[in-house]
C-alpha cells in the first residue's frame, strides 16, 4: 500500500471543474486509488459522486492510497493524482 497526504489547492475545493478533472484522471489510471478525508470512509477516486460527497474544500488534507506493485504503478498513480489535487484547477464560470 502506498499513501500520500496532500492539501487541496483549488480555490473552490473539490467540486465542479476540479472534481471533474480529478475523477477523469483517476478513471484513466491502470490501478484503483482511494481518497480519504478525515472522519469519512475511503472513497473511490474514480467515482464522481463519492468524490463530491467528500465535501473537500481548499486546504482540506486528503489521503490518497493505492496498492503498490512491482512495476510501481500504484506509486505513480498516487503521485499523479496528488500533483493534480495540489494544483489550483479552478476556472470560475460567470453567473447568468
Amino acid at each position: 500500500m502506498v499513501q500520500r497526504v496532500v492539501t487541496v489547492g483549488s480555490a473552490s475545493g473539490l467540486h465542479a471543474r476540479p472534481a471533474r478533472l480529478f475523477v477523469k484522471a483517476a478513471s484513466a489510471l491502470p490501478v484503483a486509488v482511494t481518497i480519504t478525508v478525515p472522519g469519512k470512509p475511503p472513497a473511490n477516486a474514480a467515482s464522481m459522486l463519492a468524490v463530491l460527497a467528500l465535501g473537500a474544500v481548499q486546504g482540506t488534507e486528503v489521503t490518497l492510497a493505492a496498492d503498490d506493485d512491482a512495476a510501481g504503478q500504484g506509486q505513480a498513480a498516487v503521485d499523479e493524482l496528488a500533483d493534480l489535487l495540489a494544483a489550483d484547477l479552478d476556472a470560475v464560470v460567470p453567473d447568468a
Partner: protein
Amino acid sequence: MPEALRGIGVGAGIVVGPLVRMSGPPALPEPRAVEDRSAELAVAEDALATVAAELAARSSKATDPAAADILDALSMMAADPSLSERIDELIDTRTDAPHAIHLAFEGYREMLIDAGGYLAERAQDLADLRDRVIAVALGLSMPGVPDPGHPFVLAAADLSPADTAGLDTAQVLALVTEAGGPTSHTAILARALGLPCVVGCLGVTSVADGTVVAVDAEAGVVEVGVGTERAAELRVRADRLATELAAVTGPGRTADGHAVELLLNIGGPNDLAGLAADGATDPGFEGVGLFRTEFLFLDRTDAPTFAEQRAAYAAVLRAAAGRKVVVRTLDAGADKPLPFLGMEPEPNPALGVRGLRLGRARPEVLTEQLAALAAAVADVDGARVWVMAPMVATAGEAAWFAERARAAGLGTIGAMIEVPAAALRAAEILAEVDFLSIGTNDLTQYAFAADRMDARLADLLDPGQPALLDLVAYCADAGRELGKPVGVCGEAAADPALAPVLVGLGVTSLSMAASAVPSVRRSLAGHSRADCEGLAQAARHPRSL
C-alpha cells in the same frame, strides 16, 4: 373563443404553434419479483450507459462552455462506477431494475443533502439524472426538451439550466412554464435568446401535445386550441407587432417626447461586436448602462495586469463610439469566487464580503482597476465613461469609492443601489456621487429575503411589487431633488410593462439586454409622461384603485 391561460409575460412578440410538453419524470411501477438477475442487470447497465452517452454527446455539441461543463459533470455521474456497483448489489437481492436505480440514486442524493451547502444544491441534478435513467430502463422517452422534428412551443413545469443548455432556437418558438418568476432562469434565458415567454402559467402542462397555442409574451397569455382562422388572425397581429417594433426607432422617449435613455447591459467587448461596425451610425444604440468587468478576472489564478485591463476597457470604449459607457467595478465575492482573491468560503455568500466590500479586503485590486480605466479613457478619443461601485450599502461607502475614483482621474462616479438600506438613504448616497443605478435583481432578493434563484419564491421576486417600487421611488426622488440621473439596470428595466412604471417613478435611464430594447422602446412610445406617472401611482397603491 379558445381557452386562455394567464401567467407572467417575458419579452414581446406573439407566436402560434403546436405545443409540445417536456416529458415529466416517469412514475415508478409496482415492484416486481426478479426472475432473471442478469437480464435485469443488463437493463440497468444499458440505461446508465445510454444516459451517460446522451449527455456526453450534448456536452461536446454545446457551444456555451458553462453548458458543456454542466452536461459533462452529469454524464460523469451517470457513468459513476460506485453507482453501478450499488445497483448491482440491489439487483442481486432481487430488486427490479427501476427500483434498484431509484434506491441507488436516493442513497447518493441523501449523502449530498447531508453534506449541505453547494452539494445539497447538486442533489437536484441527481434527481434529474435518476429520472432519465429510470425512463430509459422502462422503455419511455427520456425526460428533457423534446425533439418533435418541427418548430414548437415548449411547455414545462419548469426549466433548469441542464434542460435548456444548447436549446435549439430554430425549433423552439416560445417558452411557457408553470413555475418561475421574472428573474427565474427561464425568463433570463428567454430574454437573452429573444424568445417570447410566459412563466408562472398554471395549467399549461395539462394541455395535450400537438395542441395549437398562441403565446402572447407582452400580455402574458397563452391561448389554447387555436383554430385556423384565429391562427391567421394572430399571425397578422404578430406581423403588425413586429412591424410596429421595427417602426419605433431612435432614442427612447415617451409619447410626448420625454427622453429616457435605453442602454445595454454587456459582459465584455464581444457583446458590442455587432454594434462595433455601425455603432457610430445606429441611432438606436444610445450607450452602455452596465458594463460588467468580471470577464477579465474569471478563469485565472492571478489578477489581470494593468496593461491587459487598459486594453480591454479601451476596446469597449472604441466600440461604443463616443456613447456613454457605465462601467461597474469588479463585482466578486464568495458568491462569485475568484481564485486569485483567495477569499475564504462563507456560510452565507449573498450576505458576505462581495461587491464594493471586496475593497475592504483587497483595496489594491480596485485602485488598479480604476487606474486602468482612467488610462483607457485617455487612450480613446471622445470616450464617455461613468464608473460605479456594486453593492454600496451606506453613504460612507459611496464616499470612500468616489474619493478613489476621483483620485484616479475619473469624472462621473456612481453607486449601484442593490441593498434596501442604500435605497432608504438614497439622498445621502447621491450627495456623495453623481448618479445612481438600481440593480433590481439583488434589491428584490434582499428586500423580500427571497433567493433570486429560487423558483418557488417567484411571486416574491416580482419587481412590480409595491414595496420594491417604493425603494425605486426613494432613489428617483433623491435624483429629482439633487438634479442627478437615476437609472435601472436589473431585469425590471427589460420588462415592457414595467418600463413606463419606472419612468413614472422618475427613473431617467433603463439598461437591458440588446434583445429587449425594441419592445421597451415601443412601450414607452405608447405612453405620455403623465400616463407613466399615473401607472406608477397605481402600481404603488394597488388598493386605492
